[in-house]
């Protein structure tokens, strides 16, 4: 059942109707695990965010509050639409709120009464949350988790600085970047590949790292954020010092220092149209004595990577490892929304933001 209430300026009566309909919904009371507020500055969500929301709403019952900006220059005000059955069988209810720019400041006040009590509030924020001042500041004190995309910002360093500050101001809220969650599969792979003292030492004192990332065309400003996170994570874990080298063409380079020597880390773009912009699509690591090379790359059409370890004398049999979180699916969404946020993420953004 859809109750469409369009109003240039919502009156209390109209909005009361929405609340009443929610309470008196004729559908049987269904379970809800959490409140999910989705915010986008466009008329629609990007494909990737849409895939995440689709996965959530088909797996987890929740109250979904979807807030959009209206791109219609003639539209002034706020529209509210309620779908008591949800767009699928699992979601409890969906409330769609559309607002013109000048009425954004009303949004939090419309959202508060819609939230189900005693349940967590998750915020899925499509634009850069660190510079958003209309809606987020009032909602975030009540949020359990804020999920965003660092690719949406124009300067990753400044973003990390701002997000760190925002995080410190709201210690009760967990902050999760979808790029960090996308990276967790690669972190797990690296833990498994370099899981002995010998290989760990080879990684620590390597002679060069090349990280391939998906540079397919998109409106994402920072397709290299995941690669940056990966490198900073390695640096943080293995005590490297990293200094950027001026960008050459589309390739990013960094000078990395260990206790004993230095090496170059490079981000190399690769075009993979069917993957999210910025997704890591391969790794090459050369050991310090240049005797061994580790090459890790996804196997086409599979959620796995092939690991090739070769040296001048020998070429070991390649083996495969599962690569989690390549695309939105149940495990990915579970990581994004439910799993505890890694301390390593906090450390990485502090380092990137020089905080």
């Amino acid at each position, binding site marked *: 059942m859809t109750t469409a209430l369009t109003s240039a300026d919502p009156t209390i009566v109209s909005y009361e109707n929405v609340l009443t309909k929610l309470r008196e919904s004729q559908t049987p009371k269904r379970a809800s695990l959490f409140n999910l507020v989705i915010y986008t500055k466009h008329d629609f969500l990007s494909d990737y965010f849409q895939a995440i929301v689709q996965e959530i709403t088909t797996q987890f019952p929740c109250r979904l509050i979807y807030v959009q900006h209206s791109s219609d220059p003639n539209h002034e005000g706020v529209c509210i639409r309620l779908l008591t059955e949800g767009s699928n069988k699992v979601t409890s209810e969906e409330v769609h709120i559309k607002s013109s720019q000048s009425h954004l400041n009303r949004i939090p006040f419309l959202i508060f009464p819609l939230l189900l009590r005693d349940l967590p509030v998750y915020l899925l924020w499509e634009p850069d949350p660190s510079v958003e001042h209309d809606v987020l500041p009032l909602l975030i004190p009540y949020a359990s988790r804020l999920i965003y995309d660092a690719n949406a910002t124009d300067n990753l360093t400044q973003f990390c600085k701002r997000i760190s500050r925002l995080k410190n101001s709201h210690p009760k809220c967990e902050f999760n970047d979808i790029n960090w969650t996308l990276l967790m599969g690669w972190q797990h792979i690296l833990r498994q590949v370099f899981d002995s003292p010998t290989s760990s030492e080879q990684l620590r004192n390597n002679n060069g790292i090349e990280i391939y990332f998906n540079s397919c065309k998109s409106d994402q400003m920072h397709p290299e954020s995941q690669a940056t996170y990966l490198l900073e994570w390695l640096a943080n*874990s293995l005590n490297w010092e990293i200094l950027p080298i001026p960008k050459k063409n589309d390739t990013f380079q960094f000078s990395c220092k260990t206790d004993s020597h230095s090496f170059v880390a490079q981000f190399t773009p690769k075009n993979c149209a069917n993957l999210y912009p910025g997704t890591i699509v391969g790794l090459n690591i050369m050991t310090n004595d240049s005797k061994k090379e580790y090459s890790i790359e996804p196997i086409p*059409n599979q*959620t796995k990577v092939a690991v090739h370890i070769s040296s001048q004398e020998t070429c070991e049999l390649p*083996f495969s490892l599962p690569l989690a979180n390549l695309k939105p699916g149940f495990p990915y969404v579970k990581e994004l929304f439910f799993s505890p946020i890694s301390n390593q993420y906090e450390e990485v953004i502090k380092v990137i933001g020089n905080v």
Partner: protein
Amino acid sequence: MTPVSFVNPLEEENSTSKTAAPCLMVIFGATGDLTARKLLPALYNLAREGQLPAHFACVGFARRDKSNEVFRTEMRDAVNKYSRIKPIDNALWNSFSEQLYYHRSEFHEDEGYQRLRTFLNDLDLKYDTKGNRVYYLSTQPSFFPLIIEKLHKNGLIYPTSNPHGPWSRVIIEKPFGNDLGSAIGLQQEITKFLDESQIYRIDHYLGKETVQNLLILRFSNPIFESIWNNHSIDHVQITVSEEIGIGTRGNFWEEAGMLRDIVQNHMMQLLSIIAMEPPTSLTAHSIHDEKVKVLESIRPIPKNNFDKYAIRGQYGPGYINGEPVIGYREENNVNPKSNVETYVALELEIDNWRWSGVPFFLRAGKRLPKRATEVAITFKSAPAGCLFQIAGKKIDQNTLVIRIQPDEGMAVKMNCKVPGINSPIQPVKMDFHYGSYFGLSPPEAYERLLCDCMAGDTTLFARVDEVLASWKLLTPVLEHWHETVPQFPNYASGLWGPQAADVILAKSNRGWRLL
């Protein structure tokens, strides 16, 4: 082999996630039902979810002659039929099945084990599994000592004296023995060649999400733990009810019976989790210690009063879901004069500070009206003379029900006023259904258990002293039943068991829950 002292710098500090270690798994009895229905689907789903170790292969060991390809095809059919997630992912299956192999041998042939050893060594090199081994004994229990002895004799089991060396573990299916004496005997046999740390006794109930949730429910919700004692609880009922009969398992059932098949293992595990004290830590050792303590606190059933505390039954002809069904004695491979029980009801008392005076009623039966496994905690009644009992009608006792299967979840029954003037008090339920909240099908028990074995976590496996404590309690019941002749059958299929079972609760003015 990764030494114990190596800490991967890429791991998160204080990470509690378990990782299954590289290993080769050998399934003895690979052509049997369990492999097809449970083990291979479990391994496939672990692979699907990225939980299988990076370096892994599985070898089916059985007596029938077949090739790797035939075995893989059969397992594909099995996974297609029994996996909780369908349809099968062809690309995943193709890469997974390349890690499946078949080895033909008799269980007693040394030559077969020598060939196996050579084969496993080759697989070690191919898959870099570091010499680690899991042996799953999916065979008749009578083969356990033989297989373990042969594994040891042919160098397939390693001593545990070298903590940095490769490991070997053996998973054993229940039942572990038929009574106390045989369980002790079996333990003595297998520990000639295995350390207790290498023995993983499977009780698949412990792998169920709902059973694991019992610990979470008890120890992460202070509201419950504070009333989880004899001050607040009147009694506990644990029920395992099946509507099916023994099916094609007549041969097995004639040797086993309900007490051995269900009560001694699954139900005693449920009871120990419900009744245990909080462990000092979440290590396997601490949890097992608390379970053993509570099992050893259970008062032995009085020898002169067996018939009041331990009831057995056998189903006769009746109706299930409206359809006529035959009695146990008419089933295939069952002695027409058999006295094997298909129903058991027990009253147990735990003699400790927490539970003194709180009876635990256990019942398990086949051909009961519906399938249900649950634990019901009934709380004490409101005091006599209480305001709301003045009208003479006793108000319902509060009950916390934990549904293990099906319709997994929990419910609390409480009393509520019916709207209106001069209205009565009516019990209502606060109900939580796993399916409504976490719709996706949870991992099957075997997935969790196989993964835990590969990770070296024994928490969800039965330790020998738990098993022996259960046998110590129940063996006298078996002996008494062996010496006495029952009047069987004593309940019709489709009813809730023999009348005698009602007497157990009736004598204390209680009644079995209607499920």
